[in-house]
Protein backbone atom coordinates (compact mmCIF):
# COMPACT_ATOMS: atom_id res chain seq x y z
CA UNK A 1 0.00 0.00 0.00
CA UNK A 2 1.19 3.50 -0.82
CA UNK A 3 0.21 4.66 2.62
CA UNK A 4 -2.56 3.68 5.01
CA UNK A 5 -5.16 5.34 2.83
CA UNK A 6 -5.01 4.29 -0.80
CA UNK A 7 -3.68 1.75 -3.24
CA UNK A 8 -0.82 3.01 -5.37
CA UNK A 9 -1.02 3.19 -9.16
CA UNK A 10 1.42 0.27 -9.41
CA UNK A 11 -0.74 -1.87 -7.10
CA UNK A 12 -3.82 -1.11 -9.16
CA UNK A 13 -1.94 -2.01 -12.33
CA UNK A 14 -1.00 -5.44 -10.98
CA UNK A 15 -4.56 -6.02 -9.69
CA UNK A 16 -5.83 -5.75 -13.25
CA UNK A 17 -2.92 -7.14 -15.27
CA UNK A 18 -4.46 -10.37 -16.52
CA UNK A 19 -1.27 -12.40 -17.04
CA UNK A 20 -0.06 -11.62 -13.53
CA UNK A 21 -3.54 -12.32 -12.19
CA UNK A 22 -3.54 -15.71 -13.92
CA UNK A 23 -0.35 -16.48 -12.03
CA UNK A 24 -1.95 -15.31 -8.78
CA UNK A 25 -5.03 -17.43 -9.55
CA UNK A 26 -2.85 -20.53 -9.80
CA UNK A 27 -0.78 -19.66 -6.71
CA UNK A 28 -3.83 -18.85 -4.58
CA UNK A 29 -5.66 -21.99 -5.66
CA UNK A 30 -2.69 -24.19 -4.83
CA UNK A 31 -2.16 -22.42 -1.52
CA UNK A 32 -5.80 -22.57 -0.42
CA UNK A 33 -6.27 -26.15 -1.57
CA UNK A 34 -3.16 -27.43 0.19
CA UNK A 35 -3.98 -25.80 3.52
CA UNK A 36 -7.72 -26.49 3.36
CA UNK A 37 -7.27 -30.16 2.50
CA UNK A 38 -5.11 -30.65 5.62
CA UNK A 39 -8.31 -30.25 7.62
CA UNK A 40 -9.45 -33.64 6.31
CA UNK A 41 -6.66 -35.32 8.29
CA UNK A 42 -8.12 -34.18 11.62
Amino acid at each position, binding site marked *: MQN*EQEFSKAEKFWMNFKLYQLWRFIVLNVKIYT*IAVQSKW*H
Partner: protein
Amino acid sequence: MAKVLVIGAGFAGHTAALYLGNKIGRQHEVTVISNRDVFGYVPSWVWVGVGHMKPEKTIFKLKPVYDRMHVKFVHASAKEIHPDDGDQYVLGDEVGTGKEVRLDYDYLVIAPGPLLNFAGTPGLGPENGFTHSICSLPHAIKTRDAYLALCDRMKKGEKVKIVIGTGHPAATCQGAAFEYIVNVHKDLVKKGLRDKADILWLSNEPALGDFGVNGVQIKRNGVVQKSDEFIKSVFNDHGIRYQVQTGVTKVEEGRIHWQNYEGEEGTTDFDFSMLIPQFKGQPFKYIGKDGSDVSSKLINPMGFVLVDGKYGLPYPELSQTPEAWPAQYQNPNYQNVFAAGIAFAPPGPISKPFTNKNNLAIAPAPPRTGMVSGVIGRVVAMNIADLIQTGKMTHSERMTEMVAACIASMGDSLWDGNAVTIVMRPVVPDRKKYQNEFGRDLFISHLEMGVSGAWMKFMLHYTFIWKFKGLLGWKLIPE
Protein backbone atom coordinates in the same frame (compact mmCIF):
# COMPACT_ATOMS: atom_id res chain seq x y z
CA MET B 1 -29.32 -50.45 12.92
CA ALA B 2 -28.59 -46.97 14.30
CA LYS B 3 -30.74 -43.96 13.51
CA VAL B 4 -28.95 -40.69 12.83
CA LEU B 5 -31.02 -37.54 12.46
CA VAL B 6 -29.73 -34.23 11.11
CA ILE B 7 -31.76 -31.04 11.63
CA GLY B 8 -31.07 -28.54 8.84
CA ALA B 9 -29.59 -28.90 5.37
CA GLY B 10 -27.28 -25.92 5.10
CA PHE B 11 -23.50 -25.82 4.98
CA ALA B 12 -23.17 -27.76 8.23
CA GLY B 13 -26.15 -30.15 8.14
CA HIS B 14 -25.90 -30.98 4.45
CA THR B 15 -22.16 -31.62 4.70
CA ALA B 16 -22.79 -33.89 7.69
CA ALA B 17 -25.53 -35.71 5.76
CA LEU B 18 -23.28 -36.31 2.74
CA TYR B 19 -20.50 -37.80 4.88
CA LEU B 20 -22.94 -39.84 6.97
CA GLY B 21 -24.71 -41.17 3.90
CA ASN B 22 -21.40 -42.03 2.30
CA LYS B 23 -19.97 -43.72 5.40
CA ILE B 24 -22.90 -45.49 7.02
CA GLY B 25 -25.99 -44.76 4.90
CA ARG B 26 -26.18 -48.29 3.48
CA GLN B 27 -26.15 -50.05 6.85
CA HIS B 28 -27.84 -47.49 9.07
CA GLU B 29 -30.68 -44.99 8.82
CA VAL B 30 -29.57 -41.42 8.11
CA THR B 31 -32.36 -38.84 7.94
CA VAL B 32 -32.34 -35.12 7.28
CA ILE B 33 -35.21 -32.92 8.39
CA SER B 34 -35.20 -29.51 6.74
CA ASN B 35 -37.80 -26.79 6.41
CA ARG B 36 -36.58 -26.10 2.88
CA ASP B 37 -36.44 -28.78 0.18
CA VAL B 38 -33.54 -27.09 -1.56
CA PHE B 39 -29.92 -26.45 -0.68
CA GLY B 40 -29.06 -22.76 -0.82
CA TYR B 41 -25.55 -21.67 -1.76
CA VAL B 42 -25.62 -18.65 0.57
CA PRO B 43 -22.44 -16.81 -0.57
CA SER B 44 -23.94 -16.14 -4.00
CA TRP B 45 -26.96 -14.40 -2.47
CA VAL B 46 -24.73 -11.31 -2.45
CA TRP B 47 -24.94 -11.37 -6.25
CA VAL B 48 -28.69 -12.05 -6.12
CA GLY B 49 -29.03 -8.92 -3.98
CA VAL B 50 -27.64 -6.69 -6.72
CA GLY B 51 -29.47 -8.47 -9.52
CA HIS B 52 -26.38 -10.15 -10.95
CA MET B 53 -27.38 -13.75 -10.41
CA LYS B 54 -30.68 -15.49 -10.89
CA PRO B 55 -31.93 -16.88 -7.56
CA GLU B 56 -32.48 -20.33 -9.08
CA LYS B 57 -28.76 -20.59 -9.86
CA THR B 58 -28.04 -20.62 -6.13
CA ILE B 59 -30.28 -23.55 -5.17
CA PHE B 60 -30.91 -27.18 -6.06
CA LYS B 61 -33.34 -29.83 -4.84
CA LEU B 62 -32.10 -31.93 -1.94
CA LYS B 63 -34.18 -35.11 -2.39
CA PRO B 64 -32.48 -36.42 -5.56
CA VAL B 65 -29.06 -35.91 -3.94
CA TYR B 66 -30.13 -37.73 -0.78
CA ASP B 67 -31.66 -40.58 -2.77
CA ARG B 68 -28.23 -41.20 -4.32
CA MET B 69 -26.42 -40.75 -1.00
CA HIS B 70 -28.57 -43.21 1.03
CA VAL B 71 -30.10 -40.44 3.13
CA LYS B 72 -33.81 -40.12 3.90
CA PHE B 73 -35.29 -36.64 3.53
CA VAL B 74 -38.18 -35.20 5.52
CA HIS B 75 -39.45 -31.81 4.41
CA ALA B 76 -40.57 -30.46 7.75
CA SER B 77 -39.76 -27.80 10.28
CA ALA B 78 -38.35 -29.19 13.52
CA LYS B 79 -39.90 -27.71 16.67
CA GLU B 80 -39.27 -29.96 19.68
CA ILE B 81 -36.32 -32.03 20.77
CA HIS B 82 -36.84 -34.81 23.32
CA PRO B 83 -33.33 -35.84 24.33
CA ASP B 84 -33.88 -38.11 27.35
CA ASP B 85 -32.56 -41.65 27.30
CA GLY B 86 -34.92 -44.33 26.07
CA ASP B 87 -37.28 -41.94 24.31
CA GLN B 88 -35.24 -39.73 22.02
CA TYR B 89 -37.05 -38.03 19.21
CA VAL B 90 -37.64 -34.80 17.33
CA LEU B 91 -41.07 -33.41 16.53
CA GLY B 92 -41.68 -31.27 13.49
CA ASP B 93 -44.40 -29.92 11.25
CA GLU B 94 -44.45 -31.18 7.68
CA VAL B 95 -44.16 -28.30 5.23
CA GLY B 96 -47.30 -27.96 3.12
CA THR B 97 -49.61 -30.15 5.19
CA GLY B 98 -48.72 -28.96 8.70
CA LYS B 99 -48.96 -32.61 9.78
CA GLU B 100 -46.91 -33.41 12.87
CA VAL B 101 -43.97 -35.76 12.24
CA ARG B 102 -42.03 -37.71 14.85
CA LEU B 103 -38.48 -38.80 14.09
CA ASP B 104 -36.68 -41.11 16.54
CA TYR B 105 -32.93 -40.98 16.77
CA ASP B 106 -29.91 -42.59 18.36
CA TYR B 107 -27.66 -39.72 17.30
CA LEU B 108 -28.77 -36.15 16.64
CA VAL B 109 -27.00 -33.38 14.73
CA ILE B 110 -28.50 -29.94 15.36
CA ALA B 111 -27.57 -27.73 12.39
CA PRO B 112 -30.47 -25.37 11.62
CA GLY B 113 -28.34 -22.23 11.21
CA PRO B 114 -29.35 -18.94 12.79
CA LEU B 115 -32.63 -17.41 13.75
CA LEU B 116 -32.42 -13.97 12.15
CA ASN B 117 -33.28 -11.86 15.16
CA PHE B 118 -34.73 -8.77 13.49
CA ALA B 119 -36.89 -8.29 16.59
CA GLY B 120 -33.69 -7.56 18.53
CA THR B 121 -33.52 -4.14 16.84
CA PRO B 122 -36.83 -2.28 16.57
CA GLY B 123 -37.57 -1.35 12.97
CA LEU B 124 -34.94 -3.67 11.47
CA GLY B 125 -35.58 -6.06 8.61
CA PRO B 126 -37.63 -6.53 5.49
CA GLU B 127 -40.74 -7.95 7.11
CA ASN B 128 -41.70 -5.61 9.94
CA GLY B 129 -39.05 -2.96 9.45
CA PHE B 130 -37.40 -0.58 7.07
CA THR B 131 -34.10 -2.22 6.16
CA HIS B 132 -33.11 -5.08 3.90
CA SER B 133 -31.23 -8.33 4.38
CA ILE B 134 -29.40 -10.86 2.22
CA CYS B 135 -29.42 -13.58 4.88
CA SER B 136 -32.11 -15.69 3.21
CA LEU B 137 -32.99 -16.14 -0.45
CA PRO B 138 -36.44 -14.46 -0.21
CA HIS B 139 -34.74 -11.55 1.57
CA ALA B 140 -32.03 -11.30 -1.09
CA ILE B 141 -34.70 -11.20 -3.81
CA LYS B 142 -36.60 -8.47 -1.98
CA THR B 143 -33.35 -6.56 -1.51
CA ARG B 144 -32.58 -6.86 -5.23
CA ASP B 145 -36.00 -5.45 -6.14
CA ALA B 146 -35.62 -2.53 -3.73
CA TYR B 147 -32.08 -1.88 -4.95
CA LEU B 148 -33.10 -1.90 -8.62
CA ALA B 149 -36.01 0.45 -7.83
CA LEU B 150 -33.47 2.73 -6.13
CA CYS B 151 -31.31 2.61 -9.28
CA ASP B 152 -34.34 3.74 -11.30
CA ARG B 153 -34.70 6.75 -9.01
CA MET B 154 -31.01 7.52 -9.45
CA LYS B 155 -31.36 7.25 -13.22
CA LYS B 156 -33.91 10.04 -12.97
CA GLY B 157 -31.25 12.18 -11.31
CA GLU B 158 -32.10 11.66 -7.64
CA LYS B 159 -29.21 11.54 -5.17
CA VAL B 160 -29.55 8.78 -2.58
CA LYS B 161 -28.05 7.60 0.68
CA ILE B 162 -27.09 3.94 1.00
CA VAL B 163 -26.14 2.41 4.36
CA ILE B 164 -24.79 -1.14 4.60
CA GLY B 165 -23.36 -3.00 7.59
CA THR B 166 -24.60 -4.48 10.85
CA GLY B 167 -28.02 -3.83 12.37
CA HIS B 168 -27.37 -4.84 15.97
CA PRO B 169 -24.57 -4.04 18.43
CA ALA B 170 -23.74 -7.76 18.66
CA ALA B 171 -24.28 -8.77 15.04
CA THR B 172 -21.87 -11.03 13.16
CA CYS B 173 -21.37 -11.87 9.45
CA GLN B 174 -19.62 -8.56 8.63
CA GLY B 175 -17.93 -10.34 5.70
CA ALA B 176 -21.22 -10.77 3.87
CA ALA B 177 -22.15 -7.12 4.41
CA PHE B 178 -18.70 -6.04 3.24
CA GLU B 179 -19.09 -8.09 0.08
CA TYR B 180 -22.49 -6.57 -0.51
CA ILE B 181 -21.32 -2.96 -0.12
CA VAL B 182 -18.45 -3.38 -2.59
CA ASN B 183 -20.76 -5.14 -5.04
CA VAL B 184 -23.24 -2.27 -4.80
CA HIS B 185 -20.40 0.18 -5.42
CA LYS B 186 -19.15 -1.76 -8.44
CA ASP B 187 -22.64 -2.14 -9.87
CA LEU B 188 -23.33 1.57 -9.57
CA VAL B 189 -20.02 2.37 -11.27
CA LYS B 190 -20.99 0.07 -14.15
CA LYS B 191 -24.42 1.66 -14.41
CA GLY B 192 -22.86 5.14 -14.42
CA LEU B 193 -24.74 6.02 -11.24
CA ARG B 194 -22.00 6.04 -8.64
CA ASP B 195 -21.98 9.86 -8.37
CA LYS B 196 -25.65 9.72 -7.37
CA ALA B 197 -25.03 7.67 -4.24
CA ASP B 198 -23.48 8.41 -0.90
CA ILE B 199 -22.46 4.99 0.45
CA LEU B 200 -21.74 4.42 4.14
CA TRP B 201 -20.34 1.35 5.93
CA LEU B 202 -21.87 1.25 9.41
CA SER B 203 -20.61 -1.50 11.66
CA ASN B 204 -20.10 -2.75 15.19
CA GLU B 205 -16.51 -3.80 14.48
CA PRO B 206 -13.82 -2.37 16.78
CA ALA B 207 -11.89 -1.44 13.62
CA LEU B 208 -12.35 -1.64 9.87
CA GLY B 209 -11.55 -5.10 8.52
CA ASP B 210 -12.11 -6.76 11.90
CA PHE B 211 -14.80 -9.07 10.46
CA GLY B 212 -15.54 -10.43 13.94
CA VAL B 213 -12.25 -12.35 13.94
CA ASN B 214 -10.00 -9.66 15.37
CA GLY B 215 -8.89 -8.69 11.88
CA VAL B 216 -6.52 -10.47 9.55
CA GLN B 217 -2.78 -9.98 9.75
CA ILE B 218 -0.23 -11.01 7.17
CA LYS B 219 3.46 -10.69 6.62
CA ARG B 220 4.56 -9.31 3.27
CA ASN B 221 8.19 -8.54 2.48
CA GLY B 222 8.95 -8.88 6.18
CA VAL B 223 6.38 -6.25 7.15
CA VAL B 224 3.15 -7.04 9.03
CA GLN B 225 0.08 -5.70 7.24
CA LYS B 226 -3.33 -5.57 8.87
CA SER B 227 -6.78 -5.81 7.39
CA ASP B 228 -7.86 -2.43 8.81
CA GLU B 229 -5.32 -0.62 6.62
CA PHE B 230 -6.22 -2.81 3.67
CA ILE B 231 -9.98 -2.32 3.94
CA LYS B 232 -9.46 1.40 4.56
CA SER B 233 -7.61 1.53 1.25
CA VAL B 234 -10.45 -0.35 -0.46
CA PHE B 235 -13.07 2.04 0.94
CA ASN B 236 -11.03 5.14 0.18
CA ASP B 237 -10.39 3.87 -3.32
CA HIS B 238 -14.12 3.30 -3.82
CA GLY B 239 -15.25 6.51 -2.12
CA ILE B 240 -17.15 4.55 0.53
CA ARG B 241 -17.47 6.35 3.86
CA TYR B 242 -17.17 4.30 7.03
CA GLN B 243 -18.24 4.41 10.64
CA VAL B 244 -17.21 1.57 12.92
CA GLN B 245 -17.53 1.03 16.72
CA THR B 246 -21.24 1.69 16.26
CA GLY B 247 -24.21 -0.36 17.46
CA VAL B 248 -27.53 0.16 15.72
CA THR B 249 -30.25 0.40 18.35
CA LYS B 250 -33.39 1.30 16.38
CA VAL B 251 -34.54 1.98 12.83
CA GLU B 252 -37.34 4.25 11.68
CA GLU B 253 -38.42 4.89 8.12
CA GLY B 254 -35.33 6.41 6.49
CA ARG B 255 -33.44 6.85 9.77
CA ILE B 256 -31.05 4.63 11.73
CA HIS B 257 -30.45 5.28 15.43
CA TRP B 258 -27.12 4.22 16.92
CA GLN B 259 -24.73 4.49 19.81
CA ASN B 260 -20.96 4.41 19.55
CA TYR B 261 -18.03 3.44 21.79
CA GLU B 262 -18.03 6.93 23.34
CA GLY B 263 -21.66 6.45 24.33
CA GLU B 264 -22.83 9.13 21.92
CA GLU B 265 -26.25 8.64 20.41
CA GLY B 266 -26.80 9.64 16.82
CA THR B 267 -28.83 9.05 13.71
CA THR B 268 -28.03 8.34 10.07
CA ASP B 269 -30.53 8.89 7.27
CA PHE B 270 -30.91 6.44 4.42
CA ASP B 271 -32.86 5.75 1.25
CA PHE B 272 -31.73 2.13 1.08
CA SER B 273 -30.14 0.06 3.78
CA MET B 274 -28.98 -3.54 4.11
CA LEU B 275 -28.10 -4.35 7.72
CA ILE B 276 -27.27 -7.81 9.06
CA PRO B 277 -29.40 -8.71 12.11
CA GLN B 278 -28.24 -10.37 15.27
CA PHE B 279 -28.14 -14.16 15.05
CA LYS B 280 -29.73 -16.36 17.68
CA GLY B 281 -30.25 -20.10 17.95
CA GLN B 282 -33.44 -21.58 16.49
CA PRO B 283 -36.23 -21.50 19.09
CA PHE B 284 -36.69 -25.24 19.61
CA LYS B 285 -38.32 -26.60 22.72
CA TYR B 286 -36.13 -29.04 24.63
CA ILE B 287 -38.36 -31.36 26.62
CA GLY B 288 -37.42 -34.05 29.13
CA LYS B 289 -39.12 -37.41 29.64
CA ASP B 290 -41.33 -36.01 32.40
CA GLY B 291 -42.36 -33.08 30.22
CA SER B 292 -39.96 -30.67 31.96
CA ASP B 293 -37.94 -28.02 30.15
CA VAL B 294 -34.36 -29.30 29.80
CA SER B 295 -33.10 -26.46 27.65
CA SER B 296 -30.52 -25.33 30.24
CA LYS B 297 -28.73 -28.66 29.67
CA LEU B 298 -28.62 -28.09 25.94
CA ILE B 299 -28.51 -24.41 25.03
CA ASN B 300 -27.14 -21.09 26.24
CA PRO B 301 -29.42 -18.05 26.76
CA MET B 302 -28.98 -17.10 23.08
CA GLY B 303 -30.35 -20.48 22.02
CA PHE B 304 -27.03 -21.87 20.74
CA VAL B 305 -26.26 -25.49 21.56
CA LEU B 306 -23.71 -26.07 24.33
CA VAL B 307 -20.93 -28.38 23.27
CA ASP B 308 -17.49 -29.40 24.53
CA GLY B 309 -16.14 -25.84 24.88
CA LYS B 310 -15.03 -24.17 28.11
CA TYR B 311 -17.72 -21.58 28.73
CA GLY B 312 -17.61 -18.54 30.98
CA LEU B 313 -13.95 -17.55 30.68
CA PRO B 314 -13.38 -13.78 30.68
CA TYR B 315 -12.12 -12.50 27.31
CA PRO B 316 -8.47 -11.96 28.35
CA GLU B 317 -8.28 -15.56 29.55
CA LEU B 318 -10.29 -16.99 26.66
CA SER B 319 -8.02 -15.28 24.14
CA GLN B 320 -5.05 -17.13 25.69
CA THR B 321 -6.84 -20.50 25.94
CA PRO B 322 -7.20 -22.14 22.52
CA GLU B 323 -8.39 -25.39 24.12
CA ALA B 324 -11.49 -23.55 25.38
CA TRP B 325 -12.87 -23.83 21.84
CA PRO B 326 -14.80 -27.04 21.20
CA ALA B 327 -13.17 -29.87 19.33
CA GLN B 328 -15.95 -32.41 18.75
CA TYR B 329 -19.13 -30.33 19.06
CA GLN B 330 -20.74 -32.85 21.39
CA ASN B 331 -23.19 -31.79 24.09
CA PRO B 332 -21.72 -32.70 27.50
CA ASN B 333 -25.09 -33.66 29.03
CA TYR B 334 -26.51 -35.65 26.12
CA GLN B 335 -23.54 -37.32 24.49
CA ASN B 336 -25.47 -38.44 21.43
CA VAL B 337 -26.38 -34.83 20.61
CA PHE B 338 -24.01 -32.78 18.44
CA ALA B 339 -24.28 -29.27 17.00
CA ALA B 340 -22.72 -27.99 13.78
CA GLY B 341 -22.35 -24.66 12.03
CA ILE B 342 -23.92 -21.52 13.43
CA ALA B 343 -26.00 -23.64 15.82
CA PHE B 344 -23.17 -24.44 18.25
CA ALA B 345 -22.41 -22.06 21.13
CA PRO B 346 -18.95 -20.53 20.87
CA PRO B 347 -17.21 -20.03 24.23
CA GLY B 348 -16.98 -16.27 23.66
CA PRO B 349 -16.05 -13.57 21.19
CA ILE B 350 -12.98 -13.56 18.97
CA SER B 351 -12.87 -9.77 18.55
CA LYS B 352 -12.20 -7.61 21.58
CA PRO B 353 -15.52 -6.91 23.31
CA PHE B 354 -16.47 -3.40 24.35
CA THR B 355 -19.20 -1.96 26.54
CA ASN B 356 -19.85 1.78 26.38
CA LYS B 357 -20.71 4.05 29.31
CA ASN B 358 -24.44 3.44 28.74
CA ASN B 359 -23.81 -0.26 29.31
CA LEU B 360 -24.36 -1.15 25.67
CA ALA B 361 -22.09 -3.98 24.54
CA ILE B 362 -20.87 -3.17 21.04
CA ALA B 363 -18.97 -6.22 19.87
CA PRO B 364 -19.20 -8.57 16.91
CA ALA B 365 -20.26 -12.11 17.74
CA PRO B 366 -17.89 -14.75 16.36
CA PRO B 367 -18.69 -15.73 12.78
CA ARG B 368 -19.08 -19.39 11.88
CA THR B 369 -18.49 -19.09 8.15
CA GLY B 370 -19.42 -21.57 5.46
CA MET B 371 -16.03 -23.25 5.54
CA VAL B 372 -16.06 -23.51 9.35
CA SER B 373 -19.63 -24.86 9.27
CA GLY B 374 -18.72 -27.43 6.63
CA VAL B 375 -15.65 -28.61 8.55
CA ILE B 376 -17.68 -28.98 11.74
CA GLY B 377 -20.38 -30.87 9.82
CA ARG B 378 -17.73 -33.31 8.57
CA VAL B 379 -16.06 -33.74 11.98
CA VAL B 380 -19.42 -34.45 13.61
CA ALA B 381 -20.45 -36.90 10.88
CA MET B 382 -17.18 -38.81 11.01
CA ASN B 383 -17.35 -39.05 14.80
CA ILE B 384 -20.91 -40.34 14.74
CA ALA B 385 -19.83 -42.95 12.20
CA ASP B 386 -16.91 -43.79 14.51
CA LEU B 387 -19.20 -44.14 17.51
CA ILE B 388 -21.54 -46.43 15.61
CA GLN B 389 -18.76 -48.55 14.14
CA THR B 390 -16.14 -48.64 16.91
CA GLY B 391 -17.60 -46.80 19.90
CA LYS B 392 -14.76 -44.25 19.91
CA MET B 393 -14.50 -40.82 18.27
CA THR B 394 -11.29 -40.16 16.33
CA HIS B 395 -11.93 -36.73 14.78
CA SER B 396 -11.63 -33.25 16.17
CA GLU B 397 -11.01 -29.75 14.93
CA ARG B 398 -11.18 -26.57 16.95
CA MET B 399 -11.70 -23.16 15.40
CA THR B 400 -8.25 -22.43 16.80
CA GLU B 401 -6.93 -25.00 14.31
CA MET B 402 -9.16 -24.29 11.35
CA VAL B 403 -8.18 -22.32 8.31
CA ALA B 404 -10.67 -20.04 6.61
CA ALA B 405 -10.53 -18.74 3.08
CA CYS B 406 -13.00 -16.02 2.19
CA ILE B 407 -13.31 -14.33 -1.13
CA ALA B 408 -15.18 -11.06 -1.04
CA SER B 409 -16.13 -10.30 -4.61
CA MET B 410 -16.50 -6.83 -6.05
CA GLY B 411 -18.62 -7.42 -9.09
CA ASP B 412 -18.99 -10.71 -10.90
CA SER B 413 -17.35 -9.91 -14.20
CA LEU B 414 -14.51 -12.20 -15.19
CA TRP B 415 -12.92 -9.36 -17.14
CA ASP B 416 -13.09 -6.37 -14.83
CA GLY B 417 -14.47 -7.87 -11.64
CA ASN B 418 -12.32 -7.79 -8.57
CA ALA B 419 -12.18 -9.53 -5.20
CA VAL B 420 -10.38 -9.49 -1.92
CA THR B 421 -8.99 -12.91 -1.12
CA ILE B 422 -8.62 -13.46 2.61
CA VAL B 423 -6.97 -16.51 4.09
CA MET B 424 -6.44 -16.90 7.81
CA ARG B 425 -4.99 -19.64 9.94
CA PRO B 426 -6.33 -20.20 12.45
CA VAL B 427 -9.78 -18.59 12.46
CA VAL B 428 -9.58 -18.09 16.22
CA PRO B 429 -6.12 -16.92 17.25
CA ASP B 430 -3.98 -19.50 19.05
CA ARG B 431 -1.45 -17.47 20.99
CA LYS B 432 0.19 -20.58 22.38
CA LYS B 433 1.07 -22.06 19.00
CA TYR B 434 1.72 -18.85 17.08
CA GLN B 435 3.75 -16.69 19.36
CA ASN B 436 3.11 -13.31 17.85
CA GLU B 437 0.67 -10.71 19.14
CA PHE B 438 -2.01 -11.89 16.72
CA GLY B 439 -1.87 -15.63 17.43
CA ARG B 440 -1.94 -16.39 13.71
CA ASP B 441 0.32 -18.02 11.16
CA LEU B 442 1.44 -14.86 9.37
CA PHE B 443 3.01 -16.83 6.54
CA ILE B 444 -0.16 -18.71 5.60
CA SER B 445 -2.56 -15.84 6.31
CA HIS B 446 -3.14 -13.85 3.18
CA LEU B 447 -4.83 -10.69 1.99
CA GLU B 448 -4.85 -9.78 -1.67
CA MET B 449 -7.01 -7.93 -4.15
CA GLY B 450 -7.23 -8.52 -7.87
CA VAL B 451 -9.16 -9.94 -10.81
CA SER B 452 -7.91 -13.42 -9.89
CA GLY B 453 -10.16 -13.26 -6.80
CA ALA B 454 -13.18 -12.71 -9.03
CA TRP B 455 -12.21 -15.83 -11.01
CA MET B 456 -11.83 -17.77 -7.76
CA LYS B 457 -15.23 -16.65 -6.49
CA PHE B 458 -16.86 -17.71 -9.74
CA MET B 459 -15.04 -21.04 -9.65
CA LEU B 460 -16.02 -21.62 -6.02
CA HIS B 461 -19.71 -21.13 -6.82
CA TYR B 462 -19.66 -23.98 -9.33
CA THR B 463 -17.16 -26.17 -7.47
CA PHE B 464 -19.14 -26.05 -4.24
CA ILE B 465 -22.47 -26.65 -5.90
CA TRP B 466 -20.81 -29.69 -7.53
CA LYS B 467 -19.60 -30.85 -4.12
CA PHE B 468 -22.91 -30.23 -2.38
CA LYS B 469 -24.67 -32.22 -5.10
CA GLY B 470 -22.41 -35.12 -4.13
CA LEU B 471 -21.14 -35.48 -7.69
CA LEU B 472 -18.01 -37.36 -8.78
CA GLY B 473 -15.03 -36.53 -6.57
CA TRP B 474 -17.04 -34.42 -4.09
CA LYS B 475 -14.98 -35.65 -1.17
CA LEU B 476 -11.78 -34.34 -2.76
CA ILE B 477 -13.09 -30.79 -2.57
CA PRO B 478 -12.30 -29.30 0.85
CA GLU B 479 -15.18 -27.89 2.89
